[in-house]
């Protein structure tokens, strides 16, 4: 149930695979739900060329650790995983992965979705986009337009 912060490009499918191969007993779980958030190359009708993700390292790690702990308590799951980028991110690159393993698909889906919803609402990250018209901080109201 780790939460991993990364300052480099990552492959979410490799991360899921590596984690379940190394940490989970094959045959234990029947359902794996995952979500991957990827940087789009447009947002609110403007072309975005680069995004910089600022975070508050200790608090972000602390928050995501607690989120995983709560998720394991609140849902009937075997395990869960969060991977999140920070720093400079280019269009098409993955930003975040959340995943949950369970015996039951409803619990896997609900836990996976809870992870990303809580992360988006409360984890201390801030996006700054570079567009044709210059840099701008993404505001929370704009998130809904984004993904």
């Amino acid at each position: 149930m780790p939460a991993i912060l990364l300052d480099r490009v990552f492959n979410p499918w490799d991360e899921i695979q590596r984690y379940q191969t190394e940490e989970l007993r094959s045959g234990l779980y029947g359902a794996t739900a995952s979500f991957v958030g990827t940087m789009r190359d447009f947002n609110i009708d403007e072309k975005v060329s680069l995004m910089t993700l600022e975070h508050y390292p200790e608090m972000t790690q602390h928050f995501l650790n607690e989120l995983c702990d709560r998720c394991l308590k609140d849902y009937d799951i075997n395990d869960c995983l969060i991977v999140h980028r920070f720093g400079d991110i280019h269009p098409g690159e993955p930003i975040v992965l959340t995943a949950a393993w369970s015996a039951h698909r409803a619990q896997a889906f609900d836990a996976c979705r809870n992870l990303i919803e809580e992360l988006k609402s409360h984890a201390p990250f801030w996006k700054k986009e570079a567009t044709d018209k210059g840099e701008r901080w993404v505001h929370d109201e704009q998130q809904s337009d984004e993904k």
Partner: protein
Amino acid sequence: MSINVQFFASLREQLGKQQVTLEFTRPVTVLDIWSQASDGLKMPNNTLCAINMEYVKTDAMANDGDEVAFFPPVTGG
């Protein structure tokens, strides 16, 4: 008592500083800390506050050695 104050994202840019250490001689709230650290800028309505990595309201009390952070609404994921 000494408080480590941190600012992030647009607040960091607006105030032109990421970190400042303040000294107080009496117990203070998070709002008191903002007032002393923000060079007269009124706290934006949507500002989030944390003491030692936990979200708090502006009337929470800070203790010696605490890290107090101010930042705009989060936009991760």
